[in-house]
């Protein structure tokens, strides 16, 4: 089916400055770069069972932003049985651009803001591809909500996503439709 909107799932953490970068990047895409074409997945609301947050991830391709090697965003997607359509990996963006997150979590420093712009550019590139490529097809999936275990650290679930690199910082699970790779 043709893609009308994209769900963006920034890691949304609190501790690391990189998570602020991911959050601001999401706002840049949602408000400035692709207004009206993206939705932001709110994990606490999703776990709560707020319908719109469940439907947005079931019915639309998701771009997950992992801010750190802990990969909390991908971990949750793997747990709920919905592979992301693309993953943006901030450590790659840092390596590639030389930009750093800075030190301010409340309001990003200038360098952190530039990094957020760069992350947003990667998100928007993947999202725009899915929105505009007539051959990109997305299959709806249902969330696995029952008999789940949280708070168990394992890389196994993420390994099962079997990410392939599309270009520096942009990945997709092997089982998901190709982007421009």
């Amino acid at each position: 089916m043709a893609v009308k909107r994209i769900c963006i799932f920034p890691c949304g953490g609190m501790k690391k400055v990189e998570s602020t970068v991911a959050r601001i990047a999401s706002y840049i895409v949602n408000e400035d770069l692709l207004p009206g074409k993206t939705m932001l997945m709110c994990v606490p609301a999703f776990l709560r069972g707020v319908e719109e947050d469940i439907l947005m991830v079931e019915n639309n391709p998701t771009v997950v932003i992992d801010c750190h090697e802990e990969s909390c965003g991908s971990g949750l997607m793997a747990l709920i049985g919905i592979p992301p359509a693309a993953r943006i990996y901030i450590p790659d963006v840092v390596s590639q651009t030389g930009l750093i997150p800075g030190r301010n979590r409340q309001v990003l420093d200038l360098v952190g803001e530039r990094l957020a712009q760069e992350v947003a550019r990667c998100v928007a590139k993947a999202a725009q591809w899915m929105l505009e490529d007539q051959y990109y097809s997305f299959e709806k999936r249902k969330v696995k909500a029952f008999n789940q275990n949280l708070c168990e650290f394992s890389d196994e679930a993420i390994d099962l996503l079997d990410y392939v690199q599309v270009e520096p910082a942009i990945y997709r699970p092997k089982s998901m439709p190709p982007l421009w790779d």
Partner: protein
Amino acid sequence: MSVYKVTVYPCGGIGLHVSCVTRLAGYLLDEELFKSDVEILDMHRLIRGMPDEIELVETYPTIILDGCAHQCGSNLFYLLKIKPAARIYVPEIISETGLFPGRARKVLEDSGQRLAREVARRAVRIVKGMRENPNYHYTLQKINAVGLTLCDYEVDVEEAFGYIKIAPGVYRPKDMNSLPGLEEKEIQL
């Protein structure tokens, strides 16, 4: 056991502007108002299973900052079978103070920043009471996160915890310790 540190759990949302308010309130508490006495809970790292986050919620009393009526912060603790020591409910603070989250999420407007400071101010009273009152005790809890049903909106978290209202916007589960400074008149903070 006496309280060495207090965990603050801002709801962690992203879409609603009020989630930016709880986030800023958490940073104010963690970086400016208390530093090492308070630590922010990162719920994404917690559900990922990072041991330091698990230890944080099991070992120290937690104040949840619920940003909106969905009460997602309380819901996560309900899922993990951990009781918060206190809960601050931002919609009541909005009603009481007339401060609004504003319309900017990247950087909060003045009203949103003032609201965050007000949320943090209420948390300060609770933290100080827990830290300074020798009669306040916290019992370790263990997360039980096996075989959960996620995404179940039917759960009434207020009822599940038996929240009782201590002051405008401030609650605690009925079987958790009373909050010094808020429920005991003799302590003035």
